[in-house]
Structures are given as C-alpha cells and as structure tokens.
C-alpha cells in the first residue's frame, strides 16, 4: 500500500500541533465566530474578485463607496459632543472646530431625547447631564451662535423627537439667511432601533414610522445635502448583540424604511441615495473590518436586486462609526485610549465615511476637554502618521479577511430569512425577537467574562496598576436651574396665541396624512417648545408600551 505524501498544509499542521506548548484549542471572535489558526488560498478556492469585491466606487462597493476613498478625502472626524446649556456646548463646538474637527455632532440630554422640556417634573435631575438641553428654537440659535451652517455639516443624534429638532435646525439656517437646500447634515431619526435596543421610544410604531417617512420625503424634496435617517447598529451592538446581529438587524431596519418610503409614494431612487448608516466599532479588530465590508456588499445587492434601484448612489452604503462605548473599562481608564485607537483603526480599514472616537473617561461621565482632545488626536495620528489611509481597502485579498467577510454576509442572510419568516421587522419587534436575541447574546458575553473565557485587561486580568483617579466633568445643579428659568421666561415672553394656533394646526395634520414637516416648522418658528409639540403629538398618536422580554 502506498503512503500518500503529506501536503504542505498537513506538514505545517503537524508542526503546529507538535510544539512544546500545545496551541490554543479554539478561538472565536467576540461574537462567537470560530477563527482558524491559519488561512490559505484553499479558503478562497471558489472566490471571484469581480463578483465579491469589484473596484472602489463600483458595485458591489465592498472596497469602498468612492473611487478614491481616503486618497481623495479623509473620513470626516465627527466627535459627538453636548452637555449642559446651549451656551456651554456652543463653546465646546468652537473649541473642537478650532482643533481640526470638520463636522459637528450634537448630543442632547435625556429630557430633550425623550420630548420633555427642562421645566417638566420628569426632567428633574436630568437636565444637561448626558447632552445639551434644547427646549426651543431659542436654545438652538444659541447652540450654533457664531457658526455658519453652510460651512459645516451637523449630525443630530435624536430619534422620537427628531423631526422637531430637524425643523429647529432649518429655522436656525433661515435666521442666517440660508435656504434649507444649503444645509448639510444627518438626523439619526431611526425609530426602529429604539424599540429594539436603545428604548427611547415614545409613540407606537405606526405613527413613528409615519414621522420618519415624512422627514425622508421632506428631505428628498427640499434638502439634497441632508441624510434624513442614520440607520443604526451602534445601539443594537451596545445593548449586547453580536456583530452579525448588529449587521443583520441594522440592514433589516434599513429595508423597513425603504419599504415604508416606497409605500408612501416615493420612487426608490428619490430617497435611497440619502439613507445613511451608523455602526459600532468594537474591540475584535478583524471581525469589525469584515462586518463593514459585508455591510456594503449586502446593501448594494439588496438595493439593486430586491428594490430595483437604478441610481448607483442608491446602492452605496455610507456610514458613520463610533468606537464601542461598551468596551471601555472603569478600571485603569487610561487603557481606554488604546482600545479606542484599535477600534478606530478597524473602522478606517473597514472604509468608514466618518468617525467618532470615545474619550477614555466616558465610562464615568461626559468627557473633560482634555480627554476629548486626546480622542480627537487619536484620529489625527491615525490619519496622518500610520499610513493606513494611503491605499484603498488594504486588507482585500487576505484569505482570512475575505473568508470572514463572507461569513458575516452569510450570518446576516440567515437572520434576514428568519425575520421574513416571522413577517418582517415590525412583527419581530412585537414578538420581541430582536430583544430576545440581544438579551441572550448580552448574557452569554457576561457569562464568558465571569468564567474568564474572555479576558478584559484590568477587569478580570492584569488588575494591578490602578492610576490616580481621573478628573471628571461635573454638571452642577446651576445648569438645570439656569435652563429652567430660561424656558419659563421664554414661555412668558412669546406670543402664546400664536403658539396655541400652531399646535392646533399641528394636531389637525397629525390626525390626517399630510406631511408633518411644514406645521412643525411653523411651530418652532413661533417658539413652541419641544415638550409642547411632543405633548400635542402624544394626544393624537398615543404612547408605546413595550412587550417586556427578558
């Protein structure tokens, strides 16, 4: 009997196992995807470059949405910021712009996110703490005082009341003599992920979708530089999902918005070019890169094949990334600087269009100026010193990366099938499908951490070396007091008859089917407060009660 000669791979495999120390039995990504010790050309035997990758700026956009990517223009450094009063945040924005940040990103406080004015009983203790307090157009004007809206782009992280803040931003532009079409920016406005993960919902799903579609239609007709929705995976990931779940649930939400907009009468190419996305960049380096590339490929195929989009801009998945807040540790906070740097690099190697890097102290409080500056510098070092921006999609062709990219795509597709079987995204939200998957993944992660199957430096390993406590940002009670007086004074000063009339008009439109943006614009111009608008809409739309799932 002839003994077959070993292949080169088998030779290596023998030597791999025969070392003095046995190699690790198995390894997985942070999401549980198994990772082999070695990848070879065999892993890409059936793989076709043109089908899987193509060229940058070309279907299926795996390598990037623009032909020149960072050689043409670096990703936008867009640091999320906001705290206290509009005046304080205005100062921080001017600082960041002076330090080289190109776009603004507004963080609102909880009362604003939840549709309450600062003087509402439920706002007590919350004003200005995790973002800036915006009660009316007056605050918005202060927020952008001295900043030309046609010279920057602004991203606003707000969901249930998004249309209101959108209207306020447009009104601020009007005061600067700008037409809406001159304004560029993004509204997060992704209500579906609120039901799934972040839980900042207010109205039930149907009227909420109507509001989102109204903003998409309004933007499509009036604001060519505006992204009406930032379809988000970040919050889903932070709530504990795996990378594949983040990818799948985000794109599924995207499809739900596409379908709702088409149902509202828009042609897909009228609005799809302005849909944008927002992903997490977590600590498992290669998995994130694969996820971003798979996202572009999946979306391009869906838009062209499933929705029949003809405009190439409709096929392009453009996205903002934020490094993973949930990966930051309270122990030895300085280590968070390295974590953020690695996560930022993954986002860039994955071709992100804009990026926010977290500050090291955000696990304790909102960032101090110094910590925010370090976060900003992290991106600048990445952009100008490491050379990773010199060539497009540098990891393409890597046996490992291409396999992992395919794996992400396959995993997402499985979820798409499951979601379809259950009747679509809204039905899955009702059934708690997403919430359950996320809660299970979160618990599994925690279990692995407890069992030391996963290591987090400073938390369950290398625990010596706690530095001096870092200074943290304090928002004093004066902030709330000042804001409460301000909004009370506004309510006393303004033309309240006009306020009353605008609210009535709003309710009438809300009960019908016309677009809500025009009456909202009228409301904000009359200095109706956000809380008053939300209360009026709650009267008409009702409130959502979560199907609790554990």
């Amino acid at each position, binding site marked *: 009997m002839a003994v077959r000669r070993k292949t080169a791979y088998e030779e290596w495999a023998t030597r791999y196992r025969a070392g003095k120390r046995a190699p690790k039995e198995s390894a997985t990504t942070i999401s549980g995807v198994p990772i082999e010790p070695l990848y070879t050309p065999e892993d890409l035997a059936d793989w076709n470059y043109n089908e899987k990758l193509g060229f940058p700026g070309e279907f299926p956009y795996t390598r990037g949405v623009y032909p020149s990517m960072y050689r043409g223009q670096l990703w936008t450094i867009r640091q999320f910021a906001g705290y206290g009063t509009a005046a304080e945040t205005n100062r921080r924005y001017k600082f960041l712009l002076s330090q080289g940040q190109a776009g603004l990103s507004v963080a609102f406080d*909880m*009362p604003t*996110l*939840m549709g*309450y004015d600062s003087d509402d009983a*439920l*706002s*007590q*203790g*919350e004003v200005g*703490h*995790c973002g800036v307090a915006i009660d009316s157009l007056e605050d918005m004007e202060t927020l952008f005082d001295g900043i030309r809206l046609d010279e920057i782009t602004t991203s606003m992280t707000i969901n249930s009341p998004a249309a209101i803040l959108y209207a306020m931003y447009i009104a601020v532009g009007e005061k600067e003599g700008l037409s809406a079409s001159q304004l560029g920016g993004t509204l997060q406005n992704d209500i579906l992920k*609120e039901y799934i993960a*972040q*839980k*900042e919902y207010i109205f039930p799903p149907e009227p909420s979708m109507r509001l989102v579609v109204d903003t998409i239609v309004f933007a499509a007709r009036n604001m060519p530089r505006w992204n009406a929705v930032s379809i988000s995976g970040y919050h889903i990931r*932070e*709530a*504990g999902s795996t990378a594949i779940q983040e990818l799948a649930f985000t794109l599924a939400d995207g499809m739900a918005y596409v379908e709702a907009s088409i149902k509202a009468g828009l042609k897909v190419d009228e609005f799809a070019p302005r849909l944008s996305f927002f992903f997490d960049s977590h600590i498992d380096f290669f998995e994130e890169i694969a996820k971003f590339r798979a996202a572009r490929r999946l979306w391009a195929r869906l838009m062209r094949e499933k929705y029949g989009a003809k405009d190439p801009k409709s096929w392009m998945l453009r996205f903002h990334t934020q490094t993973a807040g*949930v990966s*930051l*540790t*309270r*122990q030895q906070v300085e280590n968070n600087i390295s974590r953020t740097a690695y996560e930022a690099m993954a986002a860039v190697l994955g071709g992100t269009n804009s990026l926010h890097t977290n500050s090291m102290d955000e*696990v*304790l*409080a*909102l960032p101090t100026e110094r910590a925010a500056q370090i976060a900003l510098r992290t991106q600048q070092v990445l952009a100008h010193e490491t050379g990773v921006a010199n060539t497009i999609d540098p990891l393409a062709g890597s046996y490992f990366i291409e396999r992992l990219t395919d794996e992400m795509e396959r995993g997402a597709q499985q979820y798409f099938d499951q979601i379809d079987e259950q009747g679509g995204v809204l039905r899955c939200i009702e059934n708690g499908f997403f919430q359950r998957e996320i*809660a299970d993944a*979160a*618990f599994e992660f*925690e279990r692995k*951490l*407890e069992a030391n199957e996963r290591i*987090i430096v*400073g*938390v*369950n390993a290398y625990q010596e070396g706690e530095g001096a*406590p870092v200074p*943290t940002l304090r*928002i004093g009670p004066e902030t709330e007091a000042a804001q409460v007086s301000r909004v009370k004074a506004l309510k006393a000063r303004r033309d309240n008859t006009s306020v009353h009339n605008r609210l009535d008009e709003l309710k009438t439109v809300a009960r019908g089917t016309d677009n809500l943006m025009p009456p909202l614009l009228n409301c904000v111009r009359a200095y109706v407060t956000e809380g008053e608008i939300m209360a009026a809409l709650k009267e008409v739309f009702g409130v959502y009660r*979560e199907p*609790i799932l*554990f």
Partner: protein
Amino acid sequence: MVQTKHYRVLTAKVGLDGHDRGVKVVSRALRDAGVEVIYAGLRQTPEMVVEAGIQEDVDAIGVSLHSGAHMTLIPRILELLKERNASDIVVFGGGIIPKDDADELKKMGVVEIFGPGTSLQTIIDFVNSGFKAR
C-alpha cells in the same frame, strides 16, 4: 410548616435613559443565584420604585442609571423610604456613576455602587452576605 427564605430584590431603571443591558444581565444572574427578582422596568420614578418595593416586601432595591441624574434620583429614593419607615430596605446602584458621587451616595445610605466591569459574582456575594457593604 418548613420555613424557607428567599431574598427578594427589586431591580429598576430610574430616570429617562433606556440602557437596560446591565440591569437585565444582573437580574438574570441574581435569579440564577436563587433570588426572586422583580424587574420593574424602564422609566421608573423614585416614587414608583419605593411603592413597588414596599408592596413586594423586598429586601433590597437595585437601581441602574446612565443619565447622570443619580445625585437627584437616588437620594430621593432614600428619602422616600425613610418617610415610609422602610429604611430597612437596602438600596444599591449601578451604571455610570463617578467615584466621588458613589462615595457621597454611600455616605447618604446607599450600601453599594457597582460600576461597569463589576463581576457578577461580586454582586451575588453581596446578596448572599445579606446585602452587606464590601
């Protein structure tokens, strides 16, 4: 009748923020450690948490906050418990709470603050010790 003892703990998110990953994971872990956990959910006010805690006759109330409102809302819970003669109910917390604030809350009567990265075993040990400070 054979007497049995089960710890009962009310967990809740107080204030407006909806980041419930931590409180859900902790609630599950406590259940796995033999505790009867009443998860009161999101957007609870201090009044609601105290009333529920009293009706459920819990041994402890665990609140989670990520919105920065902890220095207003947690002391209010302590105050309300005192008004209802229920200060024997232990209060502990978690979420985004800087060390200085945690220290101050402990001086006010909160028994423990478990920040991010606290191991589940630590929390379970805390419960099994009869909710004693570490």
